[in-house]
């Protein structure tokens, strides 16, 4: 697979992907906030406001609840590191970043899960009711989202005979007809539901709520302050970008660079930015129009995603 790709260019692509995810994450959040505000008839903060917020938080003091152990300060680091590993090796901009052969979809899922578990542990380490509440709810949703996600991955991997991300993308590019098959469409819906759930967006979780009873993700980061809070917030936005880009590359792969060279990369960068803008705007518009689901309605949504993913797998067998 690494034909014609020099190590330098592959490393450069990885580096570019990491930078894209770090900078693009907060910008995407800012953009989505802007769209929401506009739809609600407000002007809204500038698109780069989340970056400014991060800078502000980075300058503040770090705090730690007196009963917490070393898990509490370690959790944000692990959370960010898992996302960065995925950002470096997954084919976000080009089909062959450094170590792209190791970018396995199942491995990506388990890496992201490691990040979620470490944040939940950090929340439980505070010993507060909110930490426990957020961790319990987030892990419940995560436990139910995982089956749908893995089965949807299976549906994508069966035609490509591999769960290796670059392989799936390259084969989809070679067979554009695959992208319109029923299993792709079904898997796409399942993926979208899972991504919304995993990244804590409406209707599963409201990222802008601070009402105790409805918080999930926010409840877990209540005790973080300063650079730690910045890391958790950054990781949240980075995960959204990674998941969105993977979604776009898996289902609409055109634009991704299949050979090295600045020209290809520029196209890839532009197309990825375009896809992110479309996806972000779509999610923002959707968020304006729906209300948050009750926590105990969320499993129904995720079970629906699981059923769709299973149907997708079955249709790979029926439709040759």
């Amino acid at each position: 697979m690494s034909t014609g790709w020099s190590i330098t260019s592959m490393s450069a692509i990885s580096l570019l992907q990491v930078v894209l995810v770090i900078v693009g994450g907060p910008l995407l959040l800012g953009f989505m906030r802007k769209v929401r505000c506009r739809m609600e008839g407000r002007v809204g903060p500038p698109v780069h406001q989340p970056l400014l917020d991060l800078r502000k938080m980075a300058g503040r003091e770090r705090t730690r609840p007196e009963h917490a152990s070393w898990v509490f300060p370690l959790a944000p680091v692990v959370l960010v590191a898992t996302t960065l590993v995925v950002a470096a090796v997954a084919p976000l901009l080009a089909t062959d970043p450094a170590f792209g052969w190791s970018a396995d979809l199942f491995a990506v899922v388990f890496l992201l899960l490691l990040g979620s578990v470490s944040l939940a542990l950090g929340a439980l380490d505070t010993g507060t009711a909110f930490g426990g509440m957020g961790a319990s709810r987030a892990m419940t949703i995560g436990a139910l989202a995982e089956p749908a996600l893995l089965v949807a991955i299976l549906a994508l991997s069966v035609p490509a005979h591999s769960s290796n991300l670059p392989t799936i993308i390259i084969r989809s590019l070679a067979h554009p007809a695959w992208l319109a098959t029923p299993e792709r469409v079904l898997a796409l819906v399942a993926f979208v539901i899972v991504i919304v759930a995993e990244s804590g967006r409406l209707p599963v979780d409201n990222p802008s709520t601070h009402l105790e009873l409805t918080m999930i993700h926010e409840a877990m980061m209540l005790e973080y302050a300063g650079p730690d809070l910045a890391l958790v917030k950054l990781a949240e936005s980075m995960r959204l970008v990674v998941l969105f880009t993977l979604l776009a590359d898996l289902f609409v792969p055109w634009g991704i660079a299949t050979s090295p060279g600045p020209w290809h990369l520029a196209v890839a960068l532009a197309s990825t930015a375009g896809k992110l803008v479309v996806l972000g705007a779509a999610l923002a518009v959707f968020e304006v129009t729906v209300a948050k689901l009750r926590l105990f309605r969320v499993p129904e949504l995720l079970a629906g995603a699981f059923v769709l993913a299973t149907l997708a797998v079955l249709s790979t067998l029926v439709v040759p």
Partner: protein
Amino acid sequence: MTAALLVATALMGLAGTAAGAIAPVRFRIALSSALTIAACALGFVVGAEVLHSGHAAVVHTTTLMPLASFSLALDRFGALFVVITAVVGICAMIFRFGYDGQGLASRTASSILPLFVTSLLLVPAASNVTTFLFLWELMAITSLLLVLTDHARRSEVQVAGQWYAVMTQLGAAALILGLVLLATRSGSQSFAVIAVRSAHLPAWVRSTAFVLAVVGFGSKAGAVPLHVWLPRAHPEAPGPVSALMSAAMVNLGVYGIVRVGMGLLSGGPAWWWLLVMGLGALSAMFGSLHSATSKDLKRLLAYSTTDNVGLMLLGVGASGLFADTGHRALALLALVAALLHVVFHAVFKGSLFLSASSVHQAAGSTDLDQLGGLLRRMPVSGPIFLVGGLAIAALPPFCGFVSEWLLLQSMLHGLPSGDVAIAVAMPIGVGVLALTGGLTAFTFTKAIGIGLLGLPRTQDAERAGEVGRPMWIGAGLLAVLCLVFGVAPFLVIPSVVDAAGAVPGLHLAGALTRGWNVALPGVPGMLAPGLVAIGLVGFGGLVALGRHLVQQRPVRLTEAWGCGRELQTVRMEYTATSFGEPLTRVFEDVLSPARDVDVSHLAESRYYTEAAVIHTTIDDAFERRVYRPADRMLVRWGAVARRVPNGSVHRYLAFGLVALIVVLVVLA
């Protein structure tokens, strides 16, 4: 050479038994443990040598048992299990040096424990029916006696012992029937001869023998619905014993199913393997759901053993199914995934059970709602449990991740094979694997987060301190293995491939490892656990460094926010019950939890509540719906039957006469 070592293993174990029985109190534990460690070390050498060279270690003698020969032949497949048992045994025995189990220090327990370990080491080597059943029963009885160690102090132990005794003997009965059927029908009790002749046996004999073996071995492995003894016996057994049972003994159930199904019977029709997969799927779902909602640490671990056995059986069943449809390479891949999971499960479950016992000793309880804040108080045992928990949740860079990945891959590549049974079974398998994966992550977030992090919930947990050095060394060795195998699975995968290759009819075109990575032959892309670990450490280091550079002021210790209240108290903290509540509610139909709310009112006015207590208990559905009614029915029949022999000699003479007539009629 290996044969002599195998004999030496057995003798060393018996020496440990003797030492436990006759050594003076002062040296009893040290001597019996040291001799058991030596037996395990010898077993490890034999197993490793057989795995490496492929030459079986054969011991055959006709003088040990009357009318039957005692015969051991350790092949590569069995050797893998011997090596696993040896490693777990060594760690558990090191742990025992510091373990403060009063019961386990007794003369009885000290002499039986080495015998139990020895039988565990020798069962995979047994090569004829008598030897196998003898060693199997020895293992069952010694483990039962060890479960009963603390029976005088706690009544739950007696109940647990009864459940275990019944289940293990029912399993043994099924095994005896199955193996004896095979032996009589094929005219020899030697495994090698049965394997050759079994192909010519009638289909009903083969199928009956296989189903009986699945029942017998399934009950030992703790597969649902034969698992009921497991969540009772494991929590009540002393620490090292529960680790040995969960990490070494249940493996032998999986060993037996493979040995009989693929070895003695050389594979069978698809429905056998769909049965195994079905049992596996049921065990995995049921076990992971119950461990997600358990609040006792050891009970949680016991249910998680059922869950993991389910995953192993899924792999074994998939392997048999592939072999039946002629996909030899896939069959081997699935079997390797299952066996790799056996190895890794032994490693992480061993460390989890041992460190849970450390927690018990330090904080006086394994009830998660009585623990908390132990990571700071137990700076070594805490991280050991943390590592084990992350490994079992299949999170990189620990070992559980690698075996689950291989299991997923074998199912993914089996799907397009065009066979209907496979096409239906594999997506269900992946769904089960995925659901249990998510639930396990939930379970161990709970176990670690509620048990080790946050505030201590009781005085005992508050005062807890680190346990003695032998205990954390024993548990720690296994935790280190979790990390080593997770980063460098190439250390163990080739041996597992060799072991699986010893099963007749399976072969793989190419290696499963490429350098440090795990790769399937002929498939692009690999799993690079080492790279993931390096990436995590590298990026983590960079992030931590960056955080340090942007903000160099020291971290300020603060009071956690308590919703505006002055002081944060333990009462405000989430408990294991509250953590599991959303999940309990989601799966209410399956778990059917019983809720009991006690509200007491103030004496002055009943409109004011003085205290409200809620009890949530989640019973085992199989226990409630199947075993309890069966138990009641047996008692009722017993009461009826008791009326028949009423003590009158005349009636007994009449019985004798009737029996004689019946015998004569039958014979005539």
